[in-house]
């Protein structure tokens, strides 16, 4: 039984982790909590479900989700956040909430409020190391792993990734070294959006696509970003997995109603006893 729950927890955790990755990158580099991350996810989910209905291919659907969410995310930067540069964190946060509302309303107008679903062939579970894993879950885990691989390769293996991490570490020093903030910001919002897109596609496949789905998922993403240590990309993914697994594995003990609360009890404990998060460096919280 715990094996089956762990599989569900890993898939759930990857969804949370990918969104948390977007949140934590935005916090580390743009320095505000991006409340529009959830609705960026929703945009990706709608793009994926539409493309999947037309092509039947999960790969094309993922590509569409990545493209749509990255575009929405970049639009948010170019139209809103760039103009707010230098303003207070509260101004950014309120603007992000407003942007989230706009995305949700536009999606509601375009697609209506009826649920949409991915039509995927449902297969019986396959045995992997004695675990009964639904094939669909396996496919999603592979997609998430490839996406995470791309993001980390970009952050650690490319010049722009190094520059992004430099800005996250010390923006003034980075500017002194001639790193253009605008280029970094565009890269940041594209990558963060793409991560949201994959998460949105996965959540859409696992559940149903509605305009509210991303907003509903935002709280756990914030929890994971904080738990993982604000600004830490591996931390966000790790914390997402911890939260997903904790929720699923705890339900035989705490019941189904309180498993959601459990994530936040973990979060509370971290904030009280280890405010820099599980993976955060001492100076990561500014």
């Amino acid at each position: 039984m715990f094996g089956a729950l762990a599989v569900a927890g890993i898939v759930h955790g990857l969804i949370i982790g990918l969104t948390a990755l977007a949140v934590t990158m935005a916090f580390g580099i743009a320095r505000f909590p991006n409340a529009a991350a959830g609705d960026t996810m929703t945009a990706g989910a709608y793009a994926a479900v539409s493309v999947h209905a037309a092509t039947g291919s999960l790969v094309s659907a993922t590509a569409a989700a990545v493209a749509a969410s990255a575009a929405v995310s970049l639009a948010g930067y170019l139209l809103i956040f760039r103009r707010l540069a230098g303003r207070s964190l509260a101004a950014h946060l309120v603007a992000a909430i407003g942007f989230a509302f706009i995305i949700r309303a536009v999606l509601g107008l375009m697609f209506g409020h009826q649920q949409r679903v991915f039509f995927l062939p449902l297969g019986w579970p396959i045995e992997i190391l004695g675990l009964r894993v639904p094939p669909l879950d396996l496919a999603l885990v592979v997609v998430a792993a490839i996406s995470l691989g791309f993001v980390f390769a970009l952050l650690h293996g490319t010049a722009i990734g190094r520059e992004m991490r430099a800005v996250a570490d010390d923006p003034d020093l980075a500017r002194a070294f001639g790193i253009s903030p605008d280029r970094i910001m565009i890269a940041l919002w594209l990558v963060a959006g793409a991560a949201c897109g994959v998460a949105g596609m996965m959540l859409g496949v696992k559940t149903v696509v509605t305009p509210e789905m991303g907003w509903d998922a935002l709280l756990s993403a914030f929890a994971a970003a904080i738990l993982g240590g604000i600004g830490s990309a591996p931390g966000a993914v790790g914390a997402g997995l911890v939260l997903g697994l904790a929720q699923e594995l705890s339900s035989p003990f705490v019941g189904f109603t309180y498993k959601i609360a459990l994530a936040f009890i973990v979060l509370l404990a971290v904030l009280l006893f280890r405010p820099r998060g599980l993976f955060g460096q001492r100076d990561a919280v500014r």
Partner: protein
Amino acid sequence: MILAAVEEINSAGGVLGRRMEVFAEDSQTNPQAAVLAAKKLLEVNRVRAILGTWSSGVSLAVIPLTNEANAILMNTSGAPALSVPPANAKGLSFRFQATNDRFGRAFAEIAQREGFRRPATMAFNNASGIGNTEGFRRAWAAKGFANGEHVIYEPNQPSYRAELLRVLATRPDVIVMGSFLPDTTIILREWYQMGVPVRWIIPAWAANPQLVQALGPAVTEGIIAVDTVSNEGSPAFARYDAAYRRAMNQPGTANVYAAMAWDMAVTLALAIERARSFDTFAIRDAIRLVANPPGEAVSSFAEGKARLAAGQEIDYQGASSVLDFDEFGDVTPDFGVFRIERGEINRKYVVKI
């Protein structure tokens, strides 16, 4: 159908010589949006009654506003809490759909008739979902049978595997649901991938054509869907049916809630005629006088108005049900039992409770 019924009422001379006017707002089946809409209707348009709130969440959110404004609320929601104080402290709420508790009783009748022995229950954690399964468990126990595992689950979860594992571990022969469309979609998809056979009894607002479309015929095969059925064969239903066909180009049987909405407008108009007053509480008291026995059976506003003018008592026999309100403002419609077969939702029989 409220608009169509009001058109018929106004073309029959209106109520007490005045035309009824309808202001429409969209609740979006969302309590927050519904509260804003209700505030606007009550404070800006100064409406005297709100008709047609559908989901329990919406009705429970709107009823404090209608009570405060001394306005009548006519709803089609299931939550048992709408019957009693504090929600219905002023008795101004009238429900045209069966309560979730009555749905639960119908589920028990059906489970017995279908020969199930080991029913488990799963409920969405809200008043309506739990109302369904509680109603079922009470009625099932009253029949002298033992209830199985009971799980209450939360909305918006990417996985319901833990919940399903708990229920399926007890080897039930049927799972009775108090659920809605999105969660039912996710739960059935997950269940099918677990490969454990079991039958399902699900309210028809969740087990509907959209569910079949979302999951396909293989997953939904054999699901028993339960809904109230309209008062088919009644003269009032024939009138509603004609109006529905004109408006929607579909038979009136396609939407039980449309028949309820039609009855709301007719009942309200007849009650105003009977009350000979626009006072909310006089209208409230007149609703039972025109809808319940004793009285001459009538099937339309024009017919009822004429009989009232002649000094007779009337008993409106509605399009949705015979429409007799109990002390809580609730009615008892009949229930249709449907089975999903190769992607088609086919009506099998009717159950009375």
